[in-house]
């Protein structure tokens, strides 16, 4: 083996969860210097380790867990773990701006990030010039709504107030989205620099990052990054010997999805229940402590330094129609290669799911892709050639949202998906608006009834009616978009609702009330299912095909789990 100078190990949350720290410990024990990096993006290959050799070359190893490391150290060829060409294409097929440093640099070392050159440059310009560059770039908010970023900055810059604030919304609440976590864990300085540029532009001297308490590693890396930036003088008093001073502090959220909404987030920052209020006044006029406040999402801020280092026109050249630049998507669900994929806006859903994600895993059939979390919708196969830009995705009834992309196959029941999301929004509704509070609850009850086989023909119409009223009668985005998962599944998968209501059938074999278990001819009579059945519903002599009593069966699934012959099936 060539002489290893150092091993760079992916230590985002996914990497650590896959055991990358144990791999690191094994390598360190034999004297190989180990350096952490953030999320590399190919989450499905974690732990990922880059060996750097004395001759300057390097090799990427995948699924390199504790066992693998031990085996290699005792002589197994490294080649068994080297990343395949196909897996390398996962990254080479992307265009990385937001994730330019994630998985490349050591996030705990400011010198690996750079010298805040974009901020250094920005402080020599006038506020209007910076806003003009941002306008040229065409950057729109990456948190969900896609509002032009320059417009918000301009409004906050022009607003009059004693103190102004910059807030970074890192309350990544959409289940299924984890790009903000990866940026914070892998490249915290890009966010800090983006916030500082914003502070200079709008005339703020204080920045606050509102980050989910569920992201302890992100908080830790941000704390380290803020400390280092202060030490270097990139944050703090008289930055780059100008009159501009800017400090940043972290505020941990306490777990409320609605706090992703600007005004609710502000209420939470002030120590209150996170309930939204009527706009206007917008936060740009009256935000945190009634002062002008600009709020952007993590991914939006991470784009800012790139734009000022490379020019607004360079950013504008990437993307599609009214959606410029790139967007990071979190690929998960029934996909072969799950992880983060950053692509130019306008690439088709098909290119992302099949080109980068490798299609559906376990040889199953694609059914739908869920975009935009609880505010979004399920897009069917016939619309897979839709380009991912804000307008085109909106037309499908889904939204780009924060970029969660959950892929579903034939085993996912679309009525159950709608039920799942309604359960989520009903739970997270702050309770201020009647339709959001009670309407989502009533919609959930109807969906529960349908999935339990007790649906009635009038339920479809009732769902439509309630959906319209919840949309109209809610103050904030949570309620206004809560019906989207129901409306899109009704639109594209109406046949599944029909099957549940009229045929009392769940074709995905997912709704427990509508399926039953049986034992087929594959059964060799080993007795494993019989032993594991908690209600003695299975009977049969050894070596003879067993029989399952449907009356006794509680559909717990233990028989399926214990059967090695695929003999227990759901019908």
């Amino acid at each position: 083996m060539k002489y290893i100078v150092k091993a760079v190990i992916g230590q985002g949350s996914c990497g650590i969860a896959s055991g990358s720290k144990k791999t690191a410990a094994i390598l360190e024990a034999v004297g190989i210097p180990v350096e952490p990096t953030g999320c590399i993006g190919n989450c499905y290959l974690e732990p990922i380790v880059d060996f750097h050799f004395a001759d300057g070359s390097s090799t990427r190893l995948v699924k390199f867990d504790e066992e693998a490391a031990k085996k290699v150290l005792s002589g197994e060829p490294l080649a068994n773990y080297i990343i395949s060409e196909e897996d390398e294409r996962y990254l080479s097929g992307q265009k990385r701006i937001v994730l330019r440093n994630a998985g490349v640099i050591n996030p705990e070392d400011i010198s690996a990030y750079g010298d805040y050159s974009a901020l250094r440059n920005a402080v020599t310009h006038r506020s209007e010039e910076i806003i003009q560059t941002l306008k040229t770039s065409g950057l729109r908010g990456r948190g969900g709504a896609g509002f032009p970023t320059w417009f918000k900055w301009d409004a906050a810059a022009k607003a009059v107030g004693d103190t102004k604030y910059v807030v970074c919304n890192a309350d990544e609440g959409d289940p299924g989205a984890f790009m903000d976590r990866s940026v914070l864990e892998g490249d915290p300085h890009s966010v800090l620099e983006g916030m500082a540029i914003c502070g200079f532009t709008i005339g703020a001297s204080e920045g606050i990052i509102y980050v989910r308490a569920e992201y302890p590693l992100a908080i830790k890396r941000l704390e380290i990054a803020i400390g280092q930036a202060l030490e270097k003088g990139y944050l703090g008093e008289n930055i780059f010997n100008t009159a501009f001073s800017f400090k940043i502090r972290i505020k941990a959220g306490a777990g409320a999805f609605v706090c992703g909404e600007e005004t609710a987030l502000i209420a939470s920052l002030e120590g209150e229940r996170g309930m939204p209020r009527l706009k206007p006044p917008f936060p740009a006029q009256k935000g945190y402590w009634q002062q002008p406040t600009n709020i952007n999402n993590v991914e939006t801020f991470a784009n800012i330094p790139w734009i000022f280092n490379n020019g607004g026109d360079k950013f504008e050249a990437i993307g599609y129609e009214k959606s410029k630049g790139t967007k990071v998507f979190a690929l998960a669900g029934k996909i072969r290669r799950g992880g983060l994929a950053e692509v130019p806006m306008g690439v088709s859903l098909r290119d992302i799911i099949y080109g980068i994600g490798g299609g559906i895993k376990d040889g199953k059939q694609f059914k739908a892709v869920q975009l935009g979390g609880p505010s979004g919708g399920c897009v069917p196969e016939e619309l897979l050639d839709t380009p991912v830009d804000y307008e085109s995705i909106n037309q499908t009834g889904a939204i780009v949202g924060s970029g969660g992309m959950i892929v579903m196959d034939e085993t996912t029941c679309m009525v159950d998906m709608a039920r799942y999301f309604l359960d989520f929004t009903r739970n997270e509704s702050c309770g201020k608006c009647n339709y959001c509070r009670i309407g989502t609850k009533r919609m959930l009850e109807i969906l529960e009834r349908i999935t339990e086989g007790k649906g009635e023909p009038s339920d479809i119409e009732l769902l439509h009616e309630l959906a319209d009223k919840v949309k109209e009668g809610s103050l904030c985005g949570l309620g206004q978009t809560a019906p989207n998962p129901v409306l899109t599944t009704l639109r594209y998968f109406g046949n599944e609702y029909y099957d549940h209501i009229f045929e009392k059938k769940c074709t995905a074999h997912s709704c427990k009330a509508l399926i039953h278990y049986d034992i087929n001819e594959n059964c060799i009579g080993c007795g494993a299912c019989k032993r594991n059945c908690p209600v003695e519903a299975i009977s049969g002599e050894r070596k003879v095909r067993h029989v399952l009593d449907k009356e006794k069966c509680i559909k717990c699934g233990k028989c399926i789990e214990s059967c090695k012959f695929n003999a227990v099936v759901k019908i």
Partner: protein
Amino acid sequence: MNIELEKLDKLLDKYADAPGSLITVLQNAQEIYGWLSEGTIEHISGRTGIKAAKIYGVATFYTQFRLKPIGKHLIMLCKGTACHVNGADDIAAAASEHLSVADNETTADGLFTLNYVACLGCCSLAPVMMIRSDGGEETYGSLTNAKVRQILDDIRAKEAAAE
């Protein structure tokens, strides 16, 4: 004076007069005690002048705050979308059955509290759970029912050996 209360008082010395810091105070208090008791809320109310009812209102609004004591190991079982389509409900049922507790309940021996959470952000490893103990957090991915039972048994065995 109660030693435990002393810790809370130190915290309140720092934050009692800082506007908007109620959530931070509650987070830190929960860090100290593991949960928020009526006594803790009363004490915070007395020092900050914020009405106990309001503190209760804030504490019940956010999922992070617990008004009941928790077990030694807090199991945060993910019910996010990616986990849901990969069978989180079955995993949850397996964990619940294995420990004989429902969501938000603590085992009789005080060892485990089961908590279903919205999303842990490790979607590519779905289904996932995170277990928070004294030693920090550990995330477990690509769960199966059998794997969940094994993980819980291992922790239990470790605890028994430590006694």
